[in-house]
């Protein structure tokens, strides 16, 4: 009998799940690493400069150089900070950002955990991340960090709701909370994808997604020029890197959700010409990831109260109105809402 068979069933399951998780997380880390590289390159060329080009050919080893630097830097804990919370905060941000990937389907069968309430699970996980930010801001015992944390808390409330309503729209047309089924209900070519009937909700989702990941133009929680680095102003070395990793993992997650929920995930836009493949999903995700970078190079930063206004007074009414329209349309089976 092999060692594998000798192991207890639970141990087998744990190892099996661990390997599966690693198969998602390791590529994710690499994508995050090269996303930072892509960000610097893309924004660099948008700003008529070259971006990193010294470490390795065309600067391709830059992410590793950064990683090694961050790993070997000292983690400075401010004197009057709450050191336990200070260390735990990045973990609280990081863990949900990783855990959310558990329910993301990469194609019909390739999914870590095919649970029924996948969409709810993702909403829950992405919201937990903000606790890390708030705790970090409070535990740092720095005024800038505290302001950053307060801004982040207010911002997340304003945008979670709009984002949630946008997803309700998706779930109404798809009739399921399972991400795989949502994608499959969009089959039949580009005309069936949800972004057409749900265009306003798609924009609301995209905007809230940018806001939720604290990216420009909604990066008030770190607000470089106002509150220096906001909630992570006191973090250095690995603790900072963990925040960083979580932020970028979240950006990729939001981009992938855009592709899954509104753009048919792995489905081909022209099923008669090209087959469905995981490549479609990655391609669509890459487009949204590029959008994140593009926004950052183009827009000035919103002020904190203007973000609130946008969230509560613009995005929320838009979603509610469209949900109403959608409900009526589905009831009477109008047009695309069948």
């Amino acid at each position, binding site marked *: 009998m092999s060692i594998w068979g000798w192991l207890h069933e639970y141990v087998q399951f744990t190892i099996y799940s661990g390997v599966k998780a690693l198969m998602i997380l390791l590529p994710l880390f690499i994508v995050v690493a090269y996303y930072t590289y892509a960000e610097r390159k893309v*924004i660099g060329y*948008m*700003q*008529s*400069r070259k971006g990193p080009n010294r470490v390795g050919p065309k600067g391709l080893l830059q992410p590793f150089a950064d990683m090694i630097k961050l790993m070997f830097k000292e983690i400075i804990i401010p004197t009057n900070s709450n050191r336990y919370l200070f260390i735990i905060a990045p973990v609280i941000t990081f863990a949900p950002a990783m855990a959310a990937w558990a329910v993301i389907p990469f194609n019909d069968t390739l999914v870590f955990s095919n649970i029924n309430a996948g969409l709810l699970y993702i909403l829950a996980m992405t919201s937990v991340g903000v606790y890390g930010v708030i705790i970090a801001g409070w535990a740092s015992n720095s*005024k*800038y960090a505290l*302001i950053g944390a307060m801004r982040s808390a207010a911002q997340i409330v304003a945008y979670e709701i709009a984002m949630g309503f946008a997803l309700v729209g998706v779930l109404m047309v798809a009739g399921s909370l399972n991400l795989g089924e949502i994608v499959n209900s969009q089959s039949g070519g580009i005309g069936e994808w949800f972004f057409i009937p749900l265009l306003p909700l798609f924009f609301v989702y995209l905007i809230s997604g940018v806001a939720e990941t604290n990216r*420009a*133009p909604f*990066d*008030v929680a770190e*607000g*470089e*020029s*106002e*509150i*220096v680095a906001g909630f992570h102003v006191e973090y250095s070395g690995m603790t900072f890197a963990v925040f960083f990793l979580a932020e970028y993992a979240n950006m990729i997650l939001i981009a992938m959700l855009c592709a899954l929920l509104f753009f048919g995930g792995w489905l081909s836009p022209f099923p008669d010409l090209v087959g469905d493949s995981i490549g479609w999903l990655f391609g669509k995700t890459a487009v949204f990831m590029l959008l994140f970078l593009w926004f*950052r*190079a*183009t*827009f*000035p*930063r*919103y*002020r*904190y*109260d*203007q973000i609130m206004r946008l969230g509560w007074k613009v995005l929320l009414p838009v979603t509610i109105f469209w949900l109403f329209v959608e409900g009526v349309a589905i009831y009477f089976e109008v047009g695309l809402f069948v």
Partner: protein
Amino acid sequence: MPEIKNYTLNFGPQHPAAHGVLRLVLEMDGEVIERADPHIGLLHRGTEKLAETKPYNQTIGYMDRLDYVSMMCNEHGYVMAIEKMLDLEIPERAQYIRVMFDEITRILNHLMWIGTHALDVGAMTVFLYAFREREDLMDMYEAVSGARMHATYYRPGGVARDLPDAMPQYLESRWRSKKEADRLNQNRQGSLLDFIEDFCRRFPRYVDEYETLLTDNRIWKQRTVGIGVVSEDRAYQLGFTGPMLRGSGVEWDLRKKQPYEVYDKVDFDIPVGTNGDCYDRYLVRVEEMRQSNRIITQCIDWLRVNPGLSMTENHKVAAPRREAIKADMEGLIHHFKLFTEGYTLPPGEVYASVEHPKGEFGIYLISDGANKPYRVKIRAPGFAHLSSMNEMAQGHMLADVVAIIGTQDIVFGEIDR
């Protein structure tokens, strides 16, 4: 019941938006500013006192270092004070060169301003675009003076040397391929004037680029319209000058109202705002860049067809030519006197001011007849602007303070002196 205390935030001196060494103590109610208390003096280098210990010409270099983003305009104020005291006539060509470089400096300063202002408000691309153009302007500085920033180019009696006939070239190196170097040298084949003309041709398009990114951008407008409003009366009372005053709707420009050098011979307009908010000041400065470009073009046309002296022949203040020193007793004496003792100013006092990119830059000079000033007082425009910080920021939010610092175009070199 616990007492609710205001939140005091120490903004700077080490802060990405402090524009150098501004220390701003902010008293905030949540994010709303109750009181803004600017602290100055962290860059005090004693320029005024140093000037009292040196022959007049040796202070020109210190003037560059006052407002270190508009170097030649500072020099201009200083040499004008000396010339006024000596009643010195300077050659017309030198006057045109000065006007041209004053306007190059204005563009240099406004580019720095638009870049940092936009960066403070969060639009970082404009910053790098602006610095791309600044590179060319720095090269113009380098071509006439040998220094990219601290030129010491203006002298009492004219300018240090005439415009060069050739531009410095880029060379091939480990970091710059032959092709890249050739591309960079493409518009550097002719004289400096050719290079500047080429820049003037390209520049309006660059300004359009900045405007595309900012002027009609909704976020930019939300962040600047109605922020830091200063009424016309208040602007007068606070001692505003330059774009800060013009943004509030006052048509005041020393180049028009008290023309110096050849500003009465060139054609240009003064943009004025209406509301006196950050957005109007932004528009005013952007238009000023276009107007400066216009002035430079006119100066180039004049300078091309009018060769001549660029320095006065009064050798009591200006060094004689090298040949004259070798061949002529008078020349040798002048040279010796100038480079040991310098020149003396008659006893008395004088105030001279120029329209600096930031406002009115004035030099008040008292002489007791010696070869160095008895007292020099520098009237820096930024000082008056910074003093209004409390008034402008009150009731706004933390993020607006950053926009206001940007719109005031503060440089600590001149404020702390």
